[in-house]
C-alpha cells in the first residue's frame, strides 16, 4: 500500500529517518555482523588473536553432545510451556466468555500477572518451592513427595515450566477472550437449537473458528519460551542441576559470558538468528492469510 499524495523535499526524509537508522546500524547491524564474523573465528587460548576457521565452530557445535542436549531441553521446555499456558488460558477464556455478571472483574484479575517480569516470576516461584524455605515445598514434603529441584532434574524442569507458563497465561487469556467474543452468537444459538450440547458446540464450532487466534498464539508462545524466559531460568536454576534446564538462549549467555568461548557463542547466536527468522516468516505468512479471510 502506498500514499497517493506525498510531500516533495530532498533532505527532510533523510533527516527524519536518520535517528532510527543510526541506532539500528550501531546496535543491530554492527553486532549482528560481528556475530557472523566471530562465528567463523577461533580465538587462541590466550585471547590475543583469532584464526579464521570457516565453519568449524558450527561443525563442532553439531557434534557437541551438550549443544544437542540443549536443543532437546529447549524443545521439551517450549512444548510444555506452550501447552500448559494455552490450555489453561483457553479454559478460563471460555468460562469468562460465558458469564455475564462480573466478566470485567475476572478479566482485570486475570490479566495483571502479565506485568510481572519473567525474572520476578522466577523469584516468586522459587520462594514457594525452594526446598528449604518454600512453604509449598514444605507441604509437598509433608504429603510424602520427595521434593528437591536443586538435585532432581525432572523436578527442576517442572518448576521452570510452571513459572514460565504461569507468566504467559494472562497474555493468552486476553487474546483467546477477544477471539471468543468475535464469534457470532447466532452460530452458537443455531447449534444449540439443533440440540448440540456445550462440549459438542465447543468442539465443532467454537474451536475451529478460534483457530486463527490459536495459531497466532502458538507462534507467540514458542518465541516467548525460546527467548524471553531467560530471566526465569537464570533466577530459578541457572541452567542446572547438571545442564538439565539449560535452554539455547541460556547457553549462548553462559558460554559467551561465563565460559568466555566467544566463537562458539557467536555460532550459537547465528543458529538462533536462523530460528527466529524462520519463526518470523511463519508468523507473517499466517498474518497475510488471515487478512484474506
Amino acid at each position, binding site marked *: 500500500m502506498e500514499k497517493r499524495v506525498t510531500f516533495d*523535499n530532498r533532505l527532510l526524509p533523510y533527516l527524519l529517518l536518520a535517528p532510527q537508522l543510526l541506532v539500528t546500524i550501531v546496535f543491530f547491524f554492527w553486532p549482528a555482523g560481528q556475530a557472523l564474523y566471530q562465528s567463523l573465528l577461533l580465538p587462541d587460548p590466550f585471547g590475543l588473536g583469532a584464526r579464521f576457521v570457516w565453519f568449524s565452530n558450527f561443525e563442532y557445535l553439531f557434534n557437541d553432545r551438550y549443544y544437542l542436549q540443549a536443543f532437546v531441553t529447549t524443545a521439551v521446555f517450549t512444548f510444555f510451556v506452550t501447552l500448559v499456558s494455552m490450555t489453561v488460558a483457553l479454559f478460563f477464556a471460555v468460562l469468562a466468555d460465558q458469564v455475564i455478571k462480573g466478566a470485567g472483574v475476572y478479566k482485570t484479575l486475570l490479566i495483571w500477572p502479565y506485568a510481572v517480569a519473567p525474572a520476578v516470576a522466577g523469584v516468586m516461584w522459587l520462594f514457594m518451592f525452594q526446598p528449604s524455605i518454600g512453604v509449598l515445598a514444605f507441604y509437598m514434603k509433608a504429603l510424602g513427595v520427595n521434593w528437591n529441584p536443586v538435585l532432581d532434574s525432572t523436578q527442576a524442569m517442572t518448576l521452570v515450566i510452571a513459572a514460565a507458563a504461569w507468566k504467559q497465561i494472562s497474555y493468552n487469556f486476553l487474546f483467546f477472550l477477544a477471539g471468543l467474543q468475535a464469534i457470532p452468537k447466532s452460530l452458537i444459538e443455531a447449534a444449540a437449537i439443533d440440540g448440540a450440547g456445550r462440549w459438542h458446540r465447543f468442539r465443532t464450532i467454537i474451536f475451529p473458528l478460534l483457530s486463527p487466534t490459536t495459531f497466532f498464539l502458538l507462534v507467540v508462545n514458542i518465541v516467548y519460551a525460546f527467548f524471553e524466559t531467560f530471566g526465569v531460568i537464570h533466577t530459578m536454576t541457572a541452567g542446572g542441576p547438571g545442564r538439565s534446564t539449560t535452554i539455547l538462549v541460556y547457553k549462548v549467555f553462559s558460554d559467551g559470558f561465563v565460559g568466555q568461548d566467544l566463537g562458539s557463542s557467536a555460532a550459537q547466536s547465528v543458529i538462533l538468528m536462523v530460528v527466529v527468522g524462520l519463526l518470523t516468516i511463519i508468523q507473517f505468512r499466517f498474518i497475510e492469510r488471515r487478512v484474506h479471510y
Partner: protein
Amino acid sequence: MVEKRGFGTIFMHAVLILGIAIVCFPIYLTFVGSTVTHYDIVRVPMPLVPGPHFIENYTNALTAGINVPVGRMLFNSLVMAAGIAVGKIAISILSAYAIVYFRFPFRMLGFWAIFMTLMLPVEVRIVPTYEVAASLGLLNSYTGLVLPLIASATATFLFRQFFLTVPDELVEAARVDGAGPLRFFKDILLPLSTTNIAALFVILFIYGWNQFLWPLLITTKPEMNTIVMGLKQMMPSADDYGNWPVTMATAILAILPPVAVVVFMQRLFVKGLVETEK
C-alpha cells in the same frame, strides 16, 4: 448466553474464582513474605496470612536494601523504562513519517533495514551487542541501558500502518492551506496519533521495566542496577544469609508500577497489546 441454568452459572463462577485464586497465589504469598520477619520464613512453614512488619520491611528495603537502596533501583528502572518508551516512539514516528509521506531514493532500503530488526531479539545477539556497547563506553550509564533496546521495528511498523489509514484529503487540504511537511506533522498527524502513542507507551514501558538480561550485563556497579535484575542479586543464597522479607518487599515494589499501568490503563494496554502484535 445460550442456556440459562442456575447451577451451571454458579459452577462457572466458582471455577473462575478458584482459577483466579491459583493464578494470584504466587503474588499473594510474596506479599505475605514481605510482611513477616526473616525468622518467620526460615522457620518453615511460613504463615499464610500477612504479618505486622509491613512498614518496617518496606522502609528497610527502600532506604537500605541489601546491596543498594531499592529506592535507587526504582529510579534507575523508571529512567530506563521511560527512556525506552519515549525514545522508541520518537525515532519510530519520525521514520514512519518519512517512509509513508515522502518518495526518495533508497526509501525501500531504509524500510527493510529497519524492518529486519523485527527478527532479532536482543537475547540472540547478546555478546556482540555487549561488545559494541562496551567499546562505545556505555557500561554503567543510562544511555547504555536505553539506546541498544530502542533499535526495534515494531513501533515503526505500527505507525506506518496507522499513517496509511489517514485520509489523503488531509494532506491535500493542508497543502492548499500552505502547510509544509513539518507543519502537517505537528498540527495534524501528531494529534491524530495520540491514542496510538499512548497505547504504545504503555506496552513499551512494561517492556522496558521488565528487561533483565541487558541490565544484568551492562551494569556492574550496584548503583546502576535496575530493580528487576537487582532482585536476583538480593536473593538469599543460604538460609542464614540475606533477608527474605526485604527481598520479597523488593519483588512487590518491582511489579507495582507495571501492574498499576496494566490495571489503571487497561483499555490502552489491551489496544497496545493487540496492535503491536498485528
